[in-house]
């Protein structure tokens, strides 16, 4: 792929995240990248976003952690991860060989924990950017998620911005009344981009066991089932922020990615669809190029946001 697909995030940071095409992996669905190195040519992927990583190892939620739903999957993994220390020791030395930029997804229960992980990442080699997972309960504040409140989301963003020179993406949760307000708040607090949506909270009951199917009870829904909700939220956020918007939620093929791009997304992420077919992310990369070629579209920028109000929709008479 050529210049036509290349995008830049964090253009004002000392080392912007420049990716060869706008298709990234989504946090929590691609491990730390190395898990897929034997299956896929990762040099064709735009960027890899890692599993969310906390300051210390986390055991996570009780089993079962994933339950299939119609055209989707509900999960509650509970941020099970080896902690930033082990991630930097065991995975970071291998990232160079993946030949794709690696964005570290950062999670925490307190602002201090996010800052600690970001500081460790700042000192490490081989990390091209950070993505803040703000769909975590803010422990000092009780059960309120950082990402559901503009002020909490802005606080954690500003604190991390204060300690990192890396391009900073904030991943927004759909589980709040006003996603655009949170997006504006994190933009003002120094985010270089926002990605959305994280999973939508849901519940599946196992009727034979007469209890929730997931060990945690509720979980986050992802997959094709949530795509219209995700496209709508990207479309709303893209109308209010000036920073790049990265769209995700139910992308299974290039046509899905194009919906997000036309709704205003600069880039997209492919998540749980990769479980069924690990090469989904490459299928999206190739399909995007094919579609643009067959439609005479020279660059992603040419169609980005064309479906926004006042956009350049195709005239019915000319189609």
């Amino acid at each position: 792929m050529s210049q036509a697909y290349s995008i830049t995030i964090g253009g004002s940071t000392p080392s912007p995240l420049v990716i060869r095409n706008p298709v990234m992996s989504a946090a929590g669905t691609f491990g730390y990248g190395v898990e897929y190195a034997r299956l896929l040519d990762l040099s064709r992927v735009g960027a890899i976003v890692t599993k969310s990583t906390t300051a210390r190892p986390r055991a996570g939620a009780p089993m079962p952690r994933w339950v299939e739903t119609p055209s989707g999957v509900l999960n509650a993994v509970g941020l099970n991860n080896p902690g930033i220390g082990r991630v930097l020791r065991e995975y970071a030395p291998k990232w160079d060989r993946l030949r794709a930029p690696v964005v570290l997804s950062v999670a925490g229960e307190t602002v201090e924990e996010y800052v600690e992980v970001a500081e460790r990442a700042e000192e490490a080699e081989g990390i091209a950017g950070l993505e803040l997972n703000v769909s975590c309960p803010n422990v000092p504040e009780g059960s309120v998620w950082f990402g559901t409140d503009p002020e909490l989301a802005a606080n954690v963003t500003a604190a991390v911005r204060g300690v990192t020179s890396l391009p900073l993406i904030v991943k927004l949760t759909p589980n709040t009344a006003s996603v655009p307000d949170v997006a504006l708040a994190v933009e003002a607090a120094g985010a270089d981009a926002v990605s959305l949506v994280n999973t939508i909270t849901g519940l599946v009951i196992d009727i034979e066991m007469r209890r929730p199917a997931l060990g945690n009870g509720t979980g986050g829904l992802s997959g094709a089932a949530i795509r219209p909700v995700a496209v709508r939220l990207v479309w709303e956020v893209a109308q209010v922020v000036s920073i790049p918007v990265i769209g995700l939620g139910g992308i299974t093929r290039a046509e899905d990615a194009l919906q997000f791009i036309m709704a205003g997304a600069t880039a997209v992420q492919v998540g749980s669809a990769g479980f069924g077919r690990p090469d989904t992310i490459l299928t999206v990369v190739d399909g995007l190029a094919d579609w643009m070629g067959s439609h005479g579209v020279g660059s992603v920028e040419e169609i980005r946001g064309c479906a926004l109000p006042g956009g350049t929709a195709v005239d019915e008479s000319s189609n």
Partner: protein
Amino acid sequence: MEPRLVQACEPGRYLMLTVGESSDPYLPRPYWVRRVSKLWVNLFVGVNGIGSRWLATRRPGDRLDFFGPLGLRLELPPRTRRLLLSGDHSGLNCLLALADNALASGVEVSLVLHEVDDTSARLAPSEVEILSALDADALAWADALYAVGDHSSVQSARTALRSAGSRIPAFGVPHAPLACGVGACYGCVVETRNGARLSCVDGPAFALGDLT
């Protein structure tokens, strides 16, 4: 299947099969396979859900998408002469692959089939003795054990081994729900005395005594 992939389908290793036509069902299904020649693998499917129902409607010549084989091969402990296998129909592909391998190396094999049904029993090679209980007699005969099944059946194998006072090399292959198959989704955690492990990449077999 390509010969090199067939060759790689060793006992315990599994394929992730894509089921359905588009996004429904959404997740792939892990299946152990039994290698039967240089070009073919056998796969027995117990029909019990939407994925297996779809698989059961495939016709000869239909194409199946998969990735793998994944997971670690199951080894016979050195100097094994009498191998005891234990499980139910859900572990049948794995048990039969183990049995084939053991028989080929001149090892005697007994298979404890829980909830025995005649079909499962008929699929086993004729040299395999079919038993109905994992009891002290069976354990006294064996010099190695593999128990395949859900958490509770693997745990009862552990209990049987203990109460028989047996010290033979013994392995549990607990079923764990797989979403990704490659260690990315952290959905198939198996608790061991050495901490949490992922069944998909660290397993499927674990020392029976280490499983908690």
